[in-house]
């Protein structure tokens, strides 16, 4: 199927290009971050990716089947290149810098925090989680799988998955509330006059 957005980008339509960037940024970000665990490096690589795409749009294949995975592969190449450069600069062996050594999810969570205090709080909260809890949290929020999918993949009842996530969230929330406590304003009594319609499944 013809993809007009992709073709427009390759023809130099800046609006189409920026629309594509907005739409896929977070996805590319969390992908690249999960490979390297470095926020600034991730941001730089994505900048580089889109700059390269824009500059080489005349030679990029207009018949890509899946633009996002095409860009992910491209991004991974940029990341490897950057990591080798960094490794050379710091005289590490390039081996330990290759993206094949992907950091674990809990390591990523901690590295993603900028603030040292938050890092420590989060670290102690993560220690309280069982490997199983962590794994399911990762599947739900990072891999964005539904409760149903997680239940099927792990051979668990849906309610069990739900309970595991719920308990883990309470632990994470407590750590989290400690570092955002300052922002908690007084909660005003909420008018119950309006009964909103909810369907919670």
């Amino acid at each position, binding site marked *: *199927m013809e993809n007009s957005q992709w073709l427009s980008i390759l023809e130099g339509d800046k609006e189409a290009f920026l629309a594509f960037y907005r739409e896929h940024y977070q996805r590319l970000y969390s992908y690249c*971050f999960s490979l390297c665990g470095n926020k600034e490096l991730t941001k730089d690589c994505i900048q580089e990716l889109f700059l390269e795409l824009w500059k080489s749009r005349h030679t990029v294949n207009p018949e890509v089947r899946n633009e996002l995975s095409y860009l992910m592969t491209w991004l991974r190449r940029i990341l490897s290149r950057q990591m080798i450069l960094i490794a050379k600069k710091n005289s590490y062996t390039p081996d330990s810098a290759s993206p094949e050594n992907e950091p674990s999810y809990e390591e990523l969570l901690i590295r993603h925090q900028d603030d040292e205090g938050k890092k420590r709080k989060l670290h102690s909260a993560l220690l309280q989680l069982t490997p199983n809890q962590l794994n399911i949290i990762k599947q739900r*929020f990072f891999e964005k799988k539904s409760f149903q999918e997680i239940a099927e993949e792990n051979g668990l009842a849906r309610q069990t998955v739900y309970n595991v*996530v719920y308990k883990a*969230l309470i632990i994470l929330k407590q750590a989290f509330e400690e570092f955002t406590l300052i922002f908690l304003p007084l909660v005003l009594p909420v008018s119950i006059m*309006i009964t909103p319609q*909810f369907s919670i499944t």
Partner: protein
Amino acid sequence: MNSKNPIDYEIHDFLIDDSFINYYFKKNMDDYNLWAETLSRNPGLKPKADQAVELLQMLSLSIPDDEFRKELQKLEESISKADHSKRIGDLDILPRRTNRRRKLTYFLVAASILIIGIGYVVFKDWGKKPSLLSVTNNNEKPLEFELTDGTSVKLEPHSSLQYPGDFNEKERKVYLEGEASFHVKRDTHHPFKVFAGDLVATVLGTIFKIEKNPADSTESIELLSGSLKVDVNDAENVQRRTIYLKPKERIIYKHSTGDFFKETWSRDTLVNRTANDLVFKNADFATVARKIKEVYGITLINQSRKKNWNYNAEFSNAEFKEVLENICITEGIRSFTEKDSVVLR
């Protein structure tokens, strides 16, 4: 699974609620609306919801909006710099282009001459606004007709369309108020543009449908086949964003907040609704009456003093009696049956 009322939600309750997660990732319009409404009705809930979002960003390893905007700005700066330096070194790039690309360059030169030529003609006639014809459908049935360029239009009840008598401009521009579907005659030299409120749909391919809820709130453009470019403008009519649609996708735009979404959608959704799965969202009387007519074939006549409706409800497998009862209770009115229509007082 969670029987709590959202106004009692703690941070972790938000994150266990699929509809909240869909709201944050803008995965589903209904969930987005539900939460946007809940949060605006219950301002006390906002601090906790904000914290829930922060926790969600943390767990999904995504960056907050303000950090994203900085990145976007950086990119815009570096690509305009790249464009500038490329213009200077253009000669180096030319020999590497394929034959096809070179042809394209010539075509672009030819096209820009053409545009200058047309620009001159338009300039000569400046001030003479092309007069538009107007069709308004006041019937209860959709009105089908053909424009002079061969495009066929299906105009839904209580909608109107303004269009030029003959399309002799560079772009075929029509202006829609309400709801219509278009089967556009392909003519790549004269793009077909539909202006509907803040949305401008430019046809690259063929069939699409525009729906607008005049009571405020949402407009949607749904693409049935071909491809379509949609520009969303703000109040000052400055172009703000561009979205491309592929078949079976639609864009929904919410005036009040300026939010919009692209989602996968098919006609089946509509078929299911008419099979007694009925959803009203901030519906005014006209909308309610139209849907009732579609589903039950019964005409509603509003003789009550209540004119500004804002009706919200969901029904599945409901009989007409049940729906009517709910409408009467919610809107505080009574109903009388007359032949095959129902009068509200």
